[in-house]
């Protein structure tokens, strides 16, 4: 059986056997075709995702490599770090020499210094704003508006009453709870109208001091801030672009909010909800018939007060007329602004588009849409390493996004600040502060002051930066401001408007740095080089690649690959078992034929080869079909794109859609896998077939 003719007969027999047992061939073939399709498609998608993810991560924050202190307690997580700034990354005390060393290495094009920290911004609570409006109404002597606003105060007080009541049950201070309840009852009673009319100043103070503190604080914004050399950053990461406002001018301090953060967290509830509705409708969802969606719309409309109390008295009438005009026949008969607004917000599939547009055209200009407005100044509060709160006023120059990643929460999780601001928030002492500390040390005659003691001395009670409580109003500058002045002051003067030199900005402490190479293939070499230089020059650095630096997201392709491997393995096993069983049954059916061949002189080897050949041929044909389908499918996907239906996918896909491509390697993997399955699954049946004794030929029935 060494001749080519034998092989030809074997192939011919194998093919004809396949045709003769076509049901079996169809089952096994479909499985193999499906397996190939899956392996090829899955491989192509994963490869495409790996490529796009590498692109989006390296071109947004990470660069190719990240360096940070070798003393770090935690590992760097640029995207999706869970700890609220609690990760200890150690510090790179002086960026200058480190930068020069890194830039001296071949293939390194840029090194962008960074520092990650967390800051908090307190938004005003609703009652604060209502009371402010009430104050205005009192000043203007607008009794009607006073009545309306007092009504709103009572609505809020009613919810507060429930909270205080439930709190009083568990409270360790029941007397206090009783007092609070009494204050609420006071406001709810009809007497309070008279009190407001008689002595508005006294009534307002009562509300300010007894009711407002009961309300939860206003919205608390957690800002993940990355301090960086913004000029360098915007040059290196070419996906970076300014959306609203402007870039922070060179040498100036300030904040660039992530557009995603700005839109989702910084926006007034009703506007944000309407935006979300718009997204849902754009995705093809309908309000009618979708109970969840209907409830969302109802809940949103019920919050009309949030608009109403922000309106100036003179604005209400004209706005209601406009809104009635937009609503047309659907407008309620009532003239009450509450009813009109609520009806206006109670959108359905037909009215949504027009009212959404009308909201932004007519209502938005009259109210505060963004709590953290571009161009405005906010007070950022950071926690130093030893737990002191620091506060500083920062101008929001604009918003930014990474193009293609606009819809990604992960990519949009970080806000950008200059490095000086970062260092202030982080709590690292500047040279000037250190000199100050030196004076304190000398004065106090302390021999040595540890970092924590130093911070206590500087920022603690009686220290340079005031007490912990006082820091809330304390600007970074050492000016002292009277309480009443503060609100205006915050937005006007208490801000560091100095123009810093490049060196002042950049030199000094940073936490980490992105290293960008001319070609990612040099990553291992450059990593080794940085490590050895860090060693020899005592820089105390560690180097990680972008995938590690990105944190969990970076590991996602490994996870996906693992999932695909497991899926393939499971399908592999199932296919193996099914083919094996089918072939064993086929062998049973064919014992007479096998026995006859053996009787008339075919060796066992011949039978084995015949059986193996059958599945391999079937495998190749099915593989070709499966592979062909995969080529067509991936080609189609590459044309229409795979939508990033989940937030994290936007980052993985490097945009709202992934356009996958298929490589020769994907196809080859498919061929190898399908051949391996064919061979493995037929091994046992073919050995079984070879064991059929020739004597069964004599028992044979046709």
């Amino acid at each position, binding site marked *: 059986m060494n001749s080519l003719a034998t092989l030809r007969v074997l192939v011919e*027999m194998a093919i004809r056997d396949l045709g*003769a047992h076509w049901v079996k061939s169809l089952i096994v073939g479909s499985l193999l075709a499906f397996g190939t399709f899956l392996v090829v498609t899955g491989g192509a998608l994963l490869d495409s995702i790996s490529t796009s993810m590498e692109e989006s991560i390296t071109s947004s924050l990470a660069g190719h490599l990240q360096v940070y202190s070798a003393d770090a307690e935690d590992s760097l997580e640029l995207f999706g770090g869970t700890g609220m700034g609690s990760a200890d990354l150690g510090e790179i005390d002086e960026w200058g020499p480190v930068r020069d060393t890194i830039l001296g290495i071949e293939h390194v094009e840029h090194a962008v210094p960074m520092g990650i920290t967390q800051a908090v911004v307190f938004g005003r609570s609703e009652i604060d704003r209502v009371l402010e409006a009430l104050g205005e109404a009192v000043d203007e002597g607008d009794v009607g508006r006073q009545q309306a606003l007092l009504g709103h105060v009572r609505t809020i007080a009613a919810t507060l009453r429930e909270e205080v009541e439930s709190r009083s049950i568990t409270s360790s201070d029941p007397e206090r709870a009783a007092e609070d309840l009494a204050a609420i009852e006071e406001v709810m009673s009809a007497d309070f109208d008279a009190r407001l009319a008689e002595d508005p100043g006294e009534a307002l103070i009562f509300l300010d001091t007894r009711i407002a503190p009961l309300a939860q604080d206003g919205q608390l914004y957690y800002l993940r801030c990355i301090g960086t050399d913004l000029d360098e950053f915007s040059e290196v990461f070419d996906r970076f672009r300014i959306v609203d406002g402007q870039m922070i001018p060179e040498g100036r301090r300030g904040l660039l909010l992530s557009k995603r953060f700005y839109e989702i967290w910084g926006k007034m509830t009703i506007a944000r909800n309407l935006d979300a509705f718009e997204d849902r409708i754009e995705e093809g969802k309908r309000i009618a018939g979708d109970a969840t969606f209907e409830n969302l719309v109802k809940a949103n409309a019920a919050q009309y007060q949030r608009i109403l109390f922000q309106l100036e008295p003179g604005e209400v009438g004209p706005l209601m007329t406009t809104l009635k005009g937009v609503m047309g026949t659907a407008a309620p008969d009532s003239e009450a602004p509450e009813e009109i607004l609520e009806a206006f917000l109670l959108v359905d599939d037909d009215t949504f588009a027009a009212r959404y547009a009308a909201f932004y055209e007519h209502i938005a200009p009259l109210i505060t849409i963004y709590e953290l407005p571009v161009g405005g100044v906010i007070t950022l509060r950071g926690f130093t390493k030893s737990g002191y709160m620091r506060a500083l006023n920062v101008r929001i120059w604009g918003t930014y996004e990474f193009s293609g990643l606009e819809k990604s929460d992960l990519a949009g999780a970080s806000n950008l600040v200059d490095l000086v601001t970062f260092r202030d928030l982080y709590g690292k002492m500047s040279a000037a502060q250190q000199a100050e500390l030196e004076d304190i040390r000398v004065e106090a005659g302390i021999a040595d002051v540890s970092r924590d003691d130093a911070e206590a001395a500087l920022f603690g009670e009686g220290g340079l930066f005031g007490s912990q409580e006082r820091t809330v109003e304390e600007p970074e500058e050492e000016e002292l401001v009277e309480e009443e002045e503060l609100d205006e002051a915050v937005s006007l003067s208490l801000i560091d408007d100095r123009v810093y030199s490049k060196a002042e900005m950049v030199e000094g402490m940073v936490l980490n740095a992105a290293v960008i190479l001319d070609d990612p293939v040099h990553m291992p070499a450059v990593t080794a080089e940085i490590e050895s230089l860090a060693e020899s020059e005592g820089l105390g650095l560690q180097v990680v690649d972008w995938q590690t630096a990105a944190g969990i997201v970076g590991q996602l392709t490994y996870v996906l690959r693992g999932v695909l491997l497991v899926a393939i393995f499971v399908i592999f096993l199932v296919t193996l078992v099914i083919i094996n069983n089918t072939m064993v049954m086929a062998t049973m059916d064919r014992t007479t034929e096998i026995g006859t061949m053996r*009787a*008339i*002189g075919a060796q066992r080897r011949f039978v084995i080869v015949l059986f193996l050949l059958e599945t391999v041929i079937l495998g190749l044909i099915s593989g070709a079909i499966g592979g062909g389908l995969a080529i067509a499918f991936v080609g189609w996907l590459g044309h229409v794109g795979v939508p990033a239906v989940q937030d994290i996918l936007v980052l993985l896909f490097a945009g709202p859609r992934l356009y996958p491509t298929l490589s020769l390697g994907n196809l080859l993997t498919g061929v190898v896998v399908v051949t391996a399955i064919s061979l493995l699954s037929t091994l046992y049946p073919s050995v079984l077939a070879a064991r059929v004794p020739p004597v069964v*030929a004599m028992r044979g029935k046709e």
Partner: protein
Amino acid sequence: MANPSPGPSAEPSAPIVSLCDVVKDYPLGKLTVRAIRGVDLDIQAGEFTVIAGPSGSGKTTLLNMIGCIDTATSGTVLVGGQDTAKLSDRKLTQLRLDTLGFIFQSFNLVNVLDAFQNVQFPLLLQGTYSAAERKDMVEGLLQRVGLGDQIHKRPNELSGGQRQRVAIARALVTTPRIVLADEPTANLDSKTGNDIVDLMRELNRDEGTTFIFSTHDQNVIDRADRIVRIVDGLIADDTAQQRVQDAGA
């Protein structure tokens, strides 16, 4: 064939098949069935021998052992001078391929191959002849069995008689020294059966091929040279023995 078997010319009296005190037991649950109970049988080259006997008497069992597709429980089976008990599966298979031809009661053609390919099959296994030689040999034989115009028919396109002719051609294509046929006419009507026996006789006469076949068909028995009657696993009667006895008397 590589094995130095004593050819009939070298030693005319040496039998081509020789069975000596052969016993064959089949396990049947916890029991054993003794199908052949001590058989001595010599068959000379060129003989046309019928093994006759009622159903269940052990004809097929005997042929299996002569055909090297089953082994005796005890006793010796010599085929072409070789002790089959001492050969490996590989060697036995090679022996079957080169020395033996098989004709089965149910024809046992490979269904997916046509007549030509079925007959060619053993030649391909041997791998000694070129394509052209094989074509001549196969077509010549198919002509000889009367199927010159059915060469490319598949078994399911042929009648029972035609299939058995293909099987005969397949058994003979390697010019084996022994052809074994187990009730080759049992699945054929008597007219066709007679034609098949005629054909085998003809080939026996022309080629000198040794034929051993089992049957319980009296028509067939009547045309044999030698009739070995077997009853309950024992030889009850052997015409060759009688001839010897007749000659001696």
